[in-house]
């Protein structure tokens, strides 16, 4: 099925006016300053309070028996011996669990039904087959060994292309239809055929991006308790999305959200792996209810590796890039087969995400994508850093290099030629997204300057003369800012878009207690970045109080407002605006109370050094605590009226961009920058990247992730029927600190690309282009490694070219990931 979308021209004033709450300025006292992270003392002293640290009275421990088959019918499960083991409270099979708990949460439409324990059939190595609740994890695992399962093996599908034509027993979900295609659809944006007709050259490439995933130090887990009296569940969870979609777990368990309270714990590493964690919650809840006592289920490393929800994209691209002879890119047409594994929890959300930056920073006039989502006998895809858009960046960069190759153009020159120019913003890309501003050429020039390309070219020539394989890769990537769910789910369904425009809010609650401590409640958990430090800085700035006077807490689902939580580099950007908004409301009230107490006009008051004082009159002031105490305990001394009544809560919503008048077409998201950016005082939250203690670790992480996915994982992810895949996964090499590929890198924040001012004369947007330059060393990651001699290829010239090509591909992967290191990273150069 093909859907065609006309190129969309935005009406005048399409980008809404600024909702900036504070104009950008310099000279902040706390924001953007390098302060010690508020989160660190408890983390560094081992008092983080993770799910694993939670202990409830009478709590039992669960372990899961996992399939050692990639695809099999479960013919018989005998749990008698396991049940008879001393210390075992409960043994549950998939068939039994199904009578108590419904399918796990799903975002695909139509869904691929999945249960927290496999029913009748296992579809990947590691799938949960039965669960045991016992007095300890040790006993639970002993009991798992005593469960007898008789399987009837079914044909195993591991090749995504082969999956497209599977029939019979090789079909994983026969109830959905006679094949393993979960979704197939062609999307056409703009005059693709016309543009191809104009091309001098069509560059064709087949590209393969293998699967990779996160490896969080802390695995996914949940402690669940069930009170039969009230029918209520309480769960301690490391989900990042608890205040967003936590209620869906209730739906699986068959209880309304009012009977489910999710309490956030410290989250030990995410990058997608902790977004939802619904399988652990659903399972722990099911077990707790059935066993009649609180249950802790915490994945161990094998559980996590074989049955996680954070495998990333696994794509095969067949691409055609239509170009003029001078290198001008006209149109991009591709088929992408994406191997989603055995289930389909997030549908093709990763491609919605891809589509919102489908042309990267380039002026490509039209795009056609044929999307084929297939199901195979692998662990299902979930959310992993980049959520699919990093793959598109990589594909584009490979195609740019291929075009440069075929047209005998300099790869930098080719890119330069195709960049969207500063005066073309706001720029509507063929898929409908709007890039609001940018100065890509400036970013590229700056990157080239820092990278000192001539020097590297010299080194490359020298190295090659010595027979070493050294390549230089250049990538220019566009990374959209915060998401709204629209872009993920808009491709759902076959007939109609699954969702229309959505909002994905972030909320905060701010209050001052009688001692003057300012409490900020976030709807996220602490997932390891610096949400507390960020919130503390903003609040301290707003109230001019010492950061120690700010207390940041995390809301459970019963007290929290709707909040999306960390994901897609959105949290700081979103919550900063909400905090500023809430702070302003509370500050207003505070000043009114103080004005009354001091018999002064509010306009004459200011906040300074933890006090409220009369402007220009040093010494005439009251400590914030005194005013707060008065407001709490002497309310009757205050005049009647609304002025003194309210509490401030604030939710920041991404305002959906103006409606698309083309009508009815899916909305692969508009760029959401125009809205969110204005809430953030310049430098708020993110600060100057050079200054911030929390930025560099993330930057280093970016290229390392590119590095981590570089072995051709396609070879490795193959589960074997004999279970060998199970063991092999345990051998996957996670790059460690010493394997860091980036030797040095540079981050710059460039001048505001948009010099226009709004009505008030303030800069329209407080945003920046930023760039990251990564010098990636490769063979050097191990100093004493056979230099340049890569596998079986070093002898022949052909081999060398191969290695070089691989090197370039890797450099592009690093760069693509590196660009994600900052949400707005724009250009990255990987030098290898």
């Amino acid at each position, binding site marked *: 099925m093909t859907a065609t979308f006309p190129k969309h021209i935005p009406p005048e004033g399409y980008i809404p006016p600024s909702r900036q709450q504070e104009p950008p300025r310099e000279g902040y006292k706390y924001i953007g300053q390098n302060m010690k992270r508020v989160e660190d003392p408890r983390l560094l002293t081992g008092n983080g309070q993770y799910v694993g640290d939670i202990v409830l009275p009478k709590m039992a421990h669960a372990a899961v028996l996992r399939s050692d088959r990639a695809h099999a019918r479960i013919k018989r499960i005998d749990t008698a011996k396991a049940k008879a083991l001393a210390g075992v409270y409960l043994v549950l099979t998939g068939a039994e669990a199904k009578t108590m708990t419904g399918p796990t949460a799903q975002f695909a439409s139509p869904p691929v039904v999945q249960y927290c324990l496999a029913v009748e059939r296992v579809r990947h190595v590691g799938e949960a087959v039965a669960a045991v609740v016992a007095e300890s994890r040790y006993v639970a695992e002993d009991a798992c060994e005593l469960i007898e399962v008789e399987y009837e093996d079914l044909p195993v599908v591991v090749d995504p292309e082969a999956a497209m034509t599977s029939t019979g027993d090789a079909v994983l979900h026969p109830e959905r239809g006679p094949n393993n295609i979960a979704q197939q659809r062609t999307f056409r944006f703009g005059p693709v055929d016309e543009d191809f007709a104009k091309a001098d050259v069509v560059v064709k490439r087949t590209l393969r991006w293998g699967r990779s995933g996160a490896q969080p130090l802390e695995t996914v887990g949940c402690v669940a308790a069930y009170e039969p009296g009230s029918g209520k569940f309480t769960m301690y969870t490391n989900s990042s999305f608890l205040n967003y979609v936590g209620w869906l777990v209730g739906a699986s368990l068959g209880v309304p959200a009012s009977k489910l309270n999710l309490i956030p714990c410290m989250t030990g590493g995410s990058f997608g792996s902790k977004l939802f964690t619904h399988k652990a919650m659903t399972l722990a809840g099911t077990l707790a209810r059935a066993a009649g006592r609180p249950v802790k289920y915490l994945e161990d490393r094998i559980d996590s590796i074989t049955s996680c929800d954070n495998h990333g994209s696994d794509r095969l691209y067949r691409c055609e890039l239509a170009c003029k002879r001078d290198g001008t890119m006209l149109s991009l047409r591709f088929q992408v087969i994406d191997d989603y594994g055995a289930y389909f929890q997030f549908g093709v959300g990763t491609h919605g995400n891809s589509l919102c930056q489908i042309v990267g920073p380039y002026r490509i006039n039209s795009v056609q994508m044929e999307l084929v989502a297939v199901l195979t006998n692998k662990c299902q895809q979930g959310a992993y850093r980049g959520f699919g858009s990093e793959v598109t960046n990589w594909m584009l960069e490979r195609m740019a290099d291929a075009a440069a190759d075929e047209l005998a153009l300099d790869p930098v020159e080719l890119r330069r030629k195709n960049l969207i120019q500063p005066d073309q913003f706001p720029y509507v890309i063929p898929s409908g997204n709007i890039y609001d501003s940018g100065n890509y050429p400036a970013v590229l020039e700056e990157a080239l300057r820092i990278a000192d390309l001539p020097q590297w070219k010299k080194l490359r020539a020298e190295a090659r003369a010595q027979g070493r394989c050294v390549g230089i890769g250049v990538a220019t990537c566009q990374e959209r800012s915060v998401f709204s769910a629209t872009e993920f789910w808009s491709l759902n369904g076959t007939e109609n878009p699954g969702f229309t425009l959505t909002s994905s809010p972030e909320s905060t609650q701010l209050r001052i207690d009688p001692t003057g401590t300012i409490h900020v409640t976030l709807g996220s958990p602490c997932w390891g970045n610096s949400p507390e430090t960020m919130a503390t800085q903003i609040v301290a700035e707003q109230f001019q109080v010492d950061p120690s006077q700010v207390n940041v807490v995390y809301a459970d689902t019963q007290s929290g407002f709707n909040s999306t939580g960390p994901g897609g580099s959105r949290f700081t950007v979103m919550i900063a605006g909400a905090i500023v908004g809430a702070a302003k409301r509370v500050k207003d009230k505070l000043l009114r109370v103080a004005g009354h107490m001091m018999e002064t006009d509010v306009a004459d008051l200011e906040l300074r050094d933890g006090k409220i004082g009369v402007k220009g009159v040093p010494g005439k002031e009251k400590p914030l605590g005194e005013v707060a105490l008065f407001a709490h305990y002497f309310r009757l001394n205050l005049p009647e009226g609304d002025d003194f009544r309210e509490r401030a809560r604030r939710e920041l919503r991404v305002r959906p961009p103006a409606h698309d008048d083309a009508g009815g077409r899916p909305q692969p998201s508009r760029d959401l920058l125009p809205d969110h950016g204005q809430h953030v005082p310049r430098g708020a939250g993110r600060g100057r990247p050079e200054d911030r203690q929390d930025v560099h670790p993330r930057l280093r992480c970016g290229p390392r992730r590119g590095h981590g996915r570089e072995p051709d994982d396609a070879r490795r992810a193959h589960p074997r029927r004999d279970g060998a895949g199970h063991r092999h996964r345990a051998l996957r090499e996670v790059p460690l600190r010493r394997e860091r590929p980036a030797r040095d890198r540079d981050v710059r924040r460039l001048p505001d690309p948009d010099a226009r001012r709004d009505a008030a004369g303030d800069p329209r947007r407080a945003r920046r282009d930023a760039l990251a330059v990564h010098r990636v060393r490769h063979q050097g990651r191990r100093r004493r490694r*056979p230099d340049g001699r890569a596998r079986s290829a070093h002898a022949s010239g052909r081999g060398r070219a191969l290695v070089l090509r691989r090197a370039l591909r890797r450099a592009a992967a690093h760069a693509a990931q590196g660009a994600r290191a900052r949400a707005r990273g724009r250009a990255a150069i990987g030098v290898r």
Partner: protein
Amino acid sequence: MKPPPFEYVRPGSLPEALDALARHGATGRILAGGQSLVPMMNLRLVKPAVLIDINRVPGLAEIRVDGGELVIGALARHAALLGSALVRKHCPLMADAYRWVGHGPIRNRGTLGGNISHADPASEMPAVLAACDATIGVRSAKQSRTIPAAGFFTGALATALAEGEMVTEIRVPLAQPGQGAAWEEAANRKGDFAMAGVGVLVTVAGGKCTHAAIGVAGMAKPGTRLSATEKRLVGTALDAAAIAAAARAAREEVRPSTSYHADATYKRELVETLAARALAAARDRAR
């Protein structure tokens, strides 16, 4: 990833340990550093009924010189050996190779005795000990004996240790003047087991190689020597041509296993590259 139930005994002396070993026979296992045994138990790949923890046995962790030999107690930790001035002086090949063994926390607990008893073919120390013509001191409740390193390793994860026997010490002949040693290795990540490792010991007198020993890791059998290649080197000047020829010979002589991370062809290629480097480095150090 929890081990099945087991009993635990902690002897306070060597005779007590040997007694326990005799008593529990094949169902008992020695626990030294635990860096190989405990992960295997957690994966339920081995299920010993009794663990005999030798960590409190006194005198087992010594590193000393006795006559013409460096004597290393079975319980000497990797970290102690890596940092030992005695090892650097008297067995530079071991010192060189130890830089490639595991990570800090693993080296802090792991022991040389445990390492060779485990006999992982990818492990460095079996190759080092074979190249150095070391001997392994072994005891049971009834007897003690000495096994040459080359005969100690009988296959992947298999040794000449009989039921009831344990390693108590390792004896390495002291390095001699004119000798040079070098270890070269390729592993995917720092601290991983070797895809291939080559240890070289050469003695040079009057510009000619009088003795050469090459031990390789990452091949089918731990503690493998390349005796044919060694013979080719004796009498040569260890010049570039001789080294290149020997490296090619090494490539043919090894019996590589195919592992998950490296197939046999690739391992042969690695051996050639690594052998050439190790030989050149050892030659330079012999001067």
